[in-house]
């Protein structure tokens, strides 16, 4: 790695003692010698293991659940169904007033995706819990499922989630988050070329070294200590408090070093049910995702579809950009309404375009619920935007890097969401990339600056 101190030297003081120093990480020696304690290193006498019975169907009504055979299985201590969960219907962003509550901790009457948790089995050993889970009999009536966002948005599509009442998240702005800036149709009308293209992605797994999980110990004073690898301690504690209808003062969450998050550990999935198990049995409980659960059950990055329509001039100026983004939330919201909305604030990318129209939709399908993942709301949008930029440059016969200089945002430029640009540095990054990659651009671009002229 190289630090190029010649850029922005005039706005930066390099007079610090500890900041800017490549100090060795204080936790590295313990990491590499195996001494770092992770949540799963906690082991308590009498600890129970929790395993989930999961839906084999994408969409089905639950006619009945029979746990009688599972209860007889040696080692089984407790079996939990929806009726055992005090506040079974929840949504995690309710803490910042993003509702409605739309998801069940344990399925109640219906499953909406293949893999949904239906029954929790607590047993003396992991193996006993697994074997007993296989003996739980659930009678399903399979319902028509919808797998595709465009199908889900058509009239007459199977309704995925009754708590929403339609297959999209209803923002205060309507069926999508909207940004309107300038007059996009007038921009298209005056453009030399129009290019409309569509981009898609598939769900992606966070693939952390350490799978999602927690270990819960009842403390004997009505308090519960939850050792967890959540990425957000109080967010998880407060949601658990709501789901279990238990005062937050009864809950003590202990985290520590997490073996990789990437956004995969901000859903509140394992802690509430494990604490409930500990409360109802009076024993310590661990609930740790298997690698298979981590890869196929935990929320992935959403599948997305992005449609971009641009109007561009022969001289390289983009004069209008219309973006329609679709985020496949799967069956439940989790963090997807937030992600789709983040996209609306990110488009049209780091370029100054006078006419912009943005609609971002959060769509429900019978897919594994998606949620947070490194960059969600932006990562796939950037793939779409930057491939589109390459196509536009080639369409008008311009060098793709020079084309970006022409449109790059600079300090003071008004963004589509009506914030003036501050602290821009795109031009300088491209200038340095031009040098580093030996990708020459015209001298006038190398002379550009992100600063406001004359400021």
């Amino acid at each position, binding site marked *: 790695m190289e630090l190029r101190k010649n850029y922005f030297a005039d706005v930066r003081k390099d007079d610090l003692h500890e900041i800017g120093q490549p100090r060795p990480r204080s936790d590295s020696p313990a990491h590499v010698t195996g001494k770092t304690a992770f949540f799963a290193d906690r082991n308590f006498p009498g600890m129970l293991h929790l395993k989930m019975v999961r839906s084999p169907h994408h969409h089905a009504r639950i006619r009945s659940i029979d746990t009688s055979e599972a209860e007889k299985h040696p080692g089984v201590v407790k079996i939990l169904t929806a009726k055992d969960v005090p506040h079974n219907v929840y949504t995690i962003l309710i803490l910042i007033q993003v509702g409605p509550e739309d998801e069940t901790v344990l399925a109640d009457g219906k499953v909406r995706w293949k893999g949904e948790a239906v029954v929790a089995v607590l047993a003396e050993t992991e193996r006993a819990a697994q074997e007993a889970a296989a003996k739980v009999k659930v009678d399903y009536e399979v319902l028509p499922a919808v797998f595709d966002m465009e199908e889900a948005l058509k009239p007459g599509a199977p309704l995925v989630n009754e708590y929403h009442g339609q297959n999209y998240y209803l923002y205060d702005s309507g069926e999508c988050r909207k940004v309107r800036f300038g007059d996009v149709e007038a921009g298209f009308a005056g453009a030399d070329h129009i290019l409309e293209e569509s981009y898609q992605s598939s769900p992606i797994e966070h693939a952390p070294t350490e799978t999602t999980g927690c270990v819960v110990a009842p403390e004997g004073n009505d308090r519960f200590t939850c050792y967890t690898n959540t990425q957000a301690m*109080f967010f998880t504690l407060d949601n658990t408090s709501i789901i279990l209808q238990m005062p937050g003062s009864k809950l003590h969450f202990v985290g520590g070093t997490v073996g990789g998050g990437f956004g995969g550990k901000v859903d509140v999935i394992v802690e509430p049910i494990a604490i409930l198990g500990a409360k109802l049995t009076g024993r310590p409980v661990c609930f740790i995702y298997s690698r298979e659960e981590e*890869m196929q059950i935990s929320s992935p990055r959403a599948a997305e579809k992005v449609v971009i329509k641009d109007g561009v001039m022969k001289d390289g100026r983009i004069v209008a950009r219309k973006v329609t983004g679709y985020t496949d939330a799967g069956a439940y919201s989790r963090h997807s309404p937030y992600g789709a909305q983040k996209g609306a604030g990110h488009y049209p990318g780091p370029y100054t375009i006078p006419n912009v129209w943005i609609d971002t939709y959060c769509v429900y399908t019978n897919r594994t619920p998606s949620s947070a993942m490194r960059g969600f709301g932006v990562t796939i949008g950037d793939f779409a935007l930057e491939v589109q930029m390459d196509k536009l440059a080639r369409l008008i016969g311009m060098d793709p890097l020079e084309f970006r200089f022409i449109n790059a945002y600079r300090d003071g430029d008004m963004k589509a969401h009506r914030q003036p640009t501050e602290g821009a540095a795109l031009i300088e990054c491209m200038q340095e990339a031009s040098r580093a990659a030996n990708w020459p651009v015209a001298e006038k671009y190398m002379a550009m600056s992100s600063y406001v002229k004359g400021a």
Partner: protein
Amino acid sequence: MAIRRGRGVAAINYPTGMNLGGDPTQALVHSTPTGNFMVTLSSVDLGQGMKQIMAQICAETIGVPTDRVVVDTADTDTGPHCMGTFASRGTHRAGNAVIQAAREARQVMLEVAAEELEVNASDLETDGQGNILVKGAPQKSISIFDVALSAHFKRGRSISGRGMFLIPRSYPEKETGAMKPSTCYAHACTVAEVEVDDETGEVTVLTVKNVFEIGRALNPKMVEQQLVGGSWMGISHALYETTEPYYPNRDHGGTDFNQYLMPGPGDLAETEIIVLERPSADGPYGAKGPGEMCANPQIPAVANAVFDAVGVRIDTLPITPERILRALKAQAAN
């Protein structure tokens, strides 16, 4: 049939912190009797090194070496509220809270030192080595060790501070979408060079040259580890990863690291990282959050390089050999 070479570019920006703000983080700082400093948080270290960075920020602000700072975090019984470690917010939000708490603690420390030295607190400065000196007369000094002892046992002062950082929440205007998603943005430009085998569809990423603008590299070694890791993740997203390769058929979804495709060490490109620093107005010592951004530009840069190499556009991720071969076949048919 041939191995064809191409290169592609992408340029991006990325917001720091939770979209639309409203995401608080608090910090507490106090000194031990012998002048070491405890930072208490409830933020989570995901392995990215947050504890180390908070220690350096506290040390810089108080004016002591980093090894005199201990970070206690991720315990809801002791640590004040942090919204969480996500949205490239950890360093920016918690770092600002730590600075505010450390400034308050530093002020008490200087007041106690001033009483001991019989000068005004405003005339004192720290040397960064554990001493407090009179400005312009450095022979007149006292160690922070002695200041802490005095505060605890003689003067009855608590060398401590409270810190809080919150960007007020922005609510998007319904019709126009006017809003404030973020207060500062990191930037990147990536150039990727690939080879595509037009017989097998296989893509080899030869080099990835990344330029990142991140406000301030608080610890350059740790910046490097995060940016290199992110760059590899971007390549992985571009070419390999999906949990549902033939959705809605779920039979082919990977269930372990043998089946879920990610690049191995042998698949990784020669990776170059160049860092620019334009300090942000509201970042801790100017830092922005590059944690998420650093995995983004490689995806379109690789996609554009594949087009440059073989002349077909793969607009659906991941860019698999199967998709490239199908596109080449369609291209030949036209």
